[in-house]
């Protein structure tokens, strides 16, 4: 969750003013079928919002304003509601991310096992800061909260996989292997 306090409202307004007109986003027929099946599972259409956004992020990589509109149309909700949801949850990317999204845990159990040192190492190795993507579009680096793998700390997530008991060497090997 991102605590921006009241700035959230301002941000929504600013975004709606500055958003440039983009091409509408359209689901592939397979994704559309999946979306319909998801919606049918729930007793209320709104309840399908998170799974639809997960599906959309899988399809498009991130949730652009056009993707928000697509979700809004599917769910029959105002696009401002969808934007409110997207901005609340940290897992929804509002900007494109690299092919590999590296998210390292910085919470207490990982911190005790040198997570800050590993984060520095990742920054140097990738040549980017937290929140940035390498110029070749391959890696995005994010620092996140507890991944519930504290007993195998330090931990990080690369796309859908969680990698634990991290060391600098392990990170180097992994990054070398990611093509």
């Amino acid at each position, binding site marked *: *969750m*991102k*605590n*921006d*306090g*009241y700035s*959230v409202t301002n941000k929504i307004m600013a975004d709606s003013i500055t958003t440039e007109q983009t091409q509408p986003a359209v689901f592939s027929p397979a994704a559309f079928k999946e979306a319909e099946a998801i919606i049918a*599972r*729930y*007793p*209320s259409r*709104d*309840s*399908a*919002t*998170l*799974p639809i*956004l*997960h599906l959309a992020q899988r399809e498009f990589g991130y949730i652009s304003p056009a993707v928000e509109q697509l979700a809004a149309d599917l*769910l029959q*909700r105002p696009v401002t*509601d969808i934007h*409110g*949801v997207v901005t*609340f*949850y*940290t*897992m*929804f990317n509002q900007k494109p991310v690299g092919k590999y999204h590296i998210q390292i845990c*910085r*919470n*207490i*159990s990982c*911190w*005790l*096992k040198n997570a*800050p040192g590993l984060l*520095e190492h990742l920054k140097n190795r990738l040549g980017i800061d937290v929140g940035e993507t390498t110029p070749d579009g391959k890696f995005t680096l994010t620092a*996140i*909260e*507890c*991944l*519930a*793998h*504290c*007993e*195998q*700390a330090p931990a990080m*997530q690369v796309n*859908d*996989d*969680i990698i634990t008991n991290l060391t600098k060497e392990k990170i180097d090997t992994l990054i070398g292997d990611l093509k």
Partner: protein
Amino acid sequence: MKLVSRNFATPDSHKLAVYEQSGGYARIRKALEMEPQKIIDEVITSNLRGLGGAGFPAGRKWSFLPKGNPKPRYLVVNADEGEPGTCKDKYIMTYDPHLLLEGIMIASWAINSHTCFIYIRGEYVKQARILEEAIAEAKAAGYLGDKIFGKDFPLEVIVHRGAGAYICGEETSLLNSLEGQRGWPRLKPPFPAVEGYLACPTIVNNVETISYVPWVIELGGQKFAELGSERNGGLRLYSVSGCVNKPGVYELPMGTPLREIIFEHAGGLPEGRTLKAVIPGGSSAPVLTAAEIDIPMDFDSLAKAGSMLGSAGIIVFDDSVNLVEALAVLIRFYAHESCGQCTPCREGTGWMRKIIARVLDGGGRPADPDNLLRIANNIIGRSICPLGEAASLPVIGFVTKFRAEFEEYIATSRKVDAPATTSRMAAAL
């Protein structure tokens, strides 16, 4: 003795056939022959407590469902596992998803609910897939669907992934999230048992709580209760992380002494290190000093000692850890996760973050320990949900019990004009 962790090491333990070989799905068959009220009575007798954090007796929660309300009832399993230091529900979902499903079936029969949602944290992609596969297997066997075990009782289980918000582990935030809204907690009352998902009566229980229900049925409430301590029935999973030789998840009786968990089960501290502090129940639980670990790990004993058993996420700090910086990690976390609805929590966590950042930057003031305490005390009791307290209690615990360390840190790292930009905070976190 092992109950919910019994199958963790068995190969292919996540498969239905393997689960049934170990006696799985016998308890639901037995339960379906029992009156639902009889099951609730057994769970009350068992002293099974809510293992998500609050420790509310499970059977009593179930009996709060309003009678004669014609709306559908829902069971929601809390698999958000967001509390830092907690990593136990993952084992159940990874290695014994059918145990959770059997617990869901028994609970659903007991409370007469036909739809169960498992709200699982978004990062548990693997566990969500394992659960989906287990549900499909159970459906194919006729254990879920229109007539479970041939009985005229339909039951669907839906896996619902969260999307990265600690606050969504709080039950009313979770319900808003499940309804497709921002995860803002709701004012209570009404409690979810009366008005929960879509304003229908809803029981929210943690994964582990539900996974002990088959064992209550198998052993009987009385026998289950006797495995634990007074008013804290049975066993539970303790997650141990931080400065120990064998971090891991250990299933032990309620009331097991904290010292025994750290020094016997988790292998003690690395050679040459001594114990400095322990957080006994997830990051929200007030810290204990090394002198306070001769305590039975149950809800009542820890409450009496001014801390809490919470999620039983035990985080161990040895003498090499700087506790000022450790607290900074926790403060930053809560400031980040405050949903921003209540002014005291939103602003208070933000101010605590600013103060601890300046302390780490070398600009701490002698009054800062008291400043932190004052802010923390002003959040407590003035917030919609317990996150406000969860953010404040660790601050009060650390600053009160290790005050000298805070004062020394401020005195020795103090600079006259601390540059606000070169943040050691960033480096430390």
